[in-house]
């Protein structure tokens, strides 16, 4: 990778009070890539994603976006630099309609782009178009995940961070969601960094992957390579997959 990576995480350590969650994590995401971060419960995946977003703040190391150090910036400033986040548990606004949720996603966007971007999201997720006046909280889990992704896309991000998009969804819906994530990367040119427990789907989709264990990067490599790796298979894939 001669080109400067879009996102570079260098030696990041993060603490929750006295408990150290990340022990010097290094990873990079190049422009246009899909990178997956897999690992068991409590490995520090979500912590890493949230550290990239500035909350909690890294106590050591650096997070760089296109070379700019964003380690110490507050979340909303990081988002302003073209990073959109699909948070864990989706976190849509339950009392607001689908349309209003998407409007909220466009808070940072250019108003003139709104109609076009809305159309783009509705084309990607026709279900959302059908339910545009329905309250977010009354949608099914899969629809809420679509809404969370659609909302994140409304700001025209350069980098999309997804935290466990498959969480609590039926296998069929999981497949659909991953298919859409692939399309966002390939058709829209959005760089994607994805945190997943569902190693099979994540690694099949990703260009490259990292395996996180106990707050350290254990393995890294091309998605297919990791999928074939004996250690990964033993730890994250045996016992059937979706």
């Amino acid at each position: 990778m001669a080109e400067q990576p879009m996102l570079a995480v260098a030696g990041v350590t993060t603490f929750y009070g006295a408990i150290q969650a990340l022990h010097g994590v290094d990873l990079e995401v190049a422009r246009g890539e899909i990178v997956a971060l897999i690992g068991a419960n409590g490995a520090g995946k979500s912590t890493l994603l949230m550290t990239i977003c500035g909350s909690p703040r890294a106590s050591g190391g650096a997070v760089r976006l296109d070379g700019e150090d964003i380690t110490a910036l507050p979340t909303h400033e990081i988002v302003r630099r073209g990073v959109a986040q699909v948070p864990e548990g989706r976190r849509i606004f339950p009392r607001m309609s689908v349309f209003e949720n998407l409007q909220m996603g466009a808070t940072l966007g250019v108003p003139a782009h709104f109609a076009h971007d809305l159309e783009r999201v509705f084309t990607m997720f026709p279900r959302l178009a059908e339910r545009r006046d329905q309250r977010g909280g009354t949608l099914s889990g899969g629809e809420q995940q679509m809404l969370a992704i659609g909302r994140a896309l409304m700001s025209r991000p350069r980098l999309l961070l997804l935290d466990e998009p498959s969480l609590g969804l039926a296998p069929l819906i999981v497949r659909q969601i991953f298919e859409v994530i692939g399309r966002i990367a390939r058709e829209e040119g959005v760089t994607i960094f994805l945190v997943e427990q569902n190693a099979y789907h994540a690694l099949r989709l990703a260009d490259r992957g990292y395996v996180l264990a106990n707050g350290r990067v254990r393995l890294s490599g091309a998605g297919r390579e990791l999928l074939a790796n004996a250690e990964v298979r033993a730890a994250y894939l045996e016992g059937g997959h979706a």
Partner: protein
Amino acid sequence: MRLPAMLKDAGLTAFVAAALGIFIVGFRTVDVGSSKGLSFDYHFADLAVAVVTIFLGRLGLSLAAAGLRWPAIALGAVMVAAGASPLTLPSGFLHWFVALGGVLLLIRAVWPWANDAVTLATRTPSGVALKDAGTKWFGWLLLAGAVLLPFTPVADQKTMDLAVLILTYVMLGWGLNIVVGLAGLLDLGYVAFYAVGAYAYALLSTQHGLGFWTVLPLAGMMAALFGVLLGFPVLRLRGDYLAIVTLGFGEIIRLVILNWVDLTNGPAGIGSIPGPTLFGAVFAETPPAGKQTVSQMLGISFDGIHRLIFLYYIILVLALITNLFTQRMRRLPVGRAWEALREDETACRALGINPTNTKLTAFAIGAMFAGFAGSFFAAKQRFISPESFVFIESAIILAIVVLGGMGSQIGVVLAAVLLIGLPEWFRDLGNYRMLAFGLAMVLIMVFRPRGLVAHREPSLRLHPNRPAGGG
């Protein structure tokens, strides 16, 4: 529940009531003279009536819950009749107690029925149309009624006074609704900003001779400034912590006003505050030096009610401005951000919203409207003292917002009419009016647990043929 079980349950309730009541109601100590000290006075008849009422009431509630509507209604009717009858009960209070218990039971028995009937009616085509028209036109009808009120025969001194009072609380409720209802920040010290506005006008008018219309915007800005000053340090806090700090802030403002005697005249308050003028003319029987009265200007005979009607229209316009402003804000990005913040702060940050600034604007704008209302209050009362800005005022305004259904504009109006109007209308009940007031509040929370108007109108819809409602 079968009848024996119901009787057992009612008996148990009556037993608990008797056990608790025997010390509170049954015995009373009386002073029998300086040498003999205290002796007991026995009120077992009172206790017996209360316990029987509780037994019947509990039985009636069980019957109603089991779907035995008619026995419950009959029981309620008997209780009302007994309470209202000339039959001598040991005290006047017991008449009220029995009658109100009966009313409660009747409402409970009839409620599911009425509810079903209403639900059924709204499903029929004409019912749907009526409901749509109702929600659409209700606000406008209310507004028309408010505008025409001074010209109706009911508009005497007492009614207009009450109307001005209610509208003041409607305005305060709408202002606090921005903070609590929209932005979801629990503010228990809202009255502080009301006080800032009131003292700003009182001081600027009595000491610097500024008029109401000059000071009004200044008072609003002053209150907004205090909102920002308070907001900066505390808006990082959430929920309970924020509530406690705002509660403290409300008290601090009151204590400063109370103790800074040089500036505020302390507990004695500030008097002879000039009222608002109409194009420079004052509302008075005899004109002060160098000014003319409104009756002279208009060539009509003096009547004390003119001043009240003028005040009424001022507060009506101020309240409407608050409402219009809020409705506009809800459609703007910052207003939407307030609502989003109430729903999920973490998600808001993930969307690039600066939560501190967003909360600060809500806080400052809410405070600004309290400042306007405060300076109106000072101009209306012509005398203010720290006693008008105690915590109970904050609590009442908050109750208006919560009972109205957080974030609902029309709900605030209904709740203000209920909460401010009821205690005034019930004044004939004497000491029992607060009991009736409490009962009304309990009833609202039992039957409309999410507020009078719990439905939230989307701020915007996509279909142009279905415009956003008045909310």
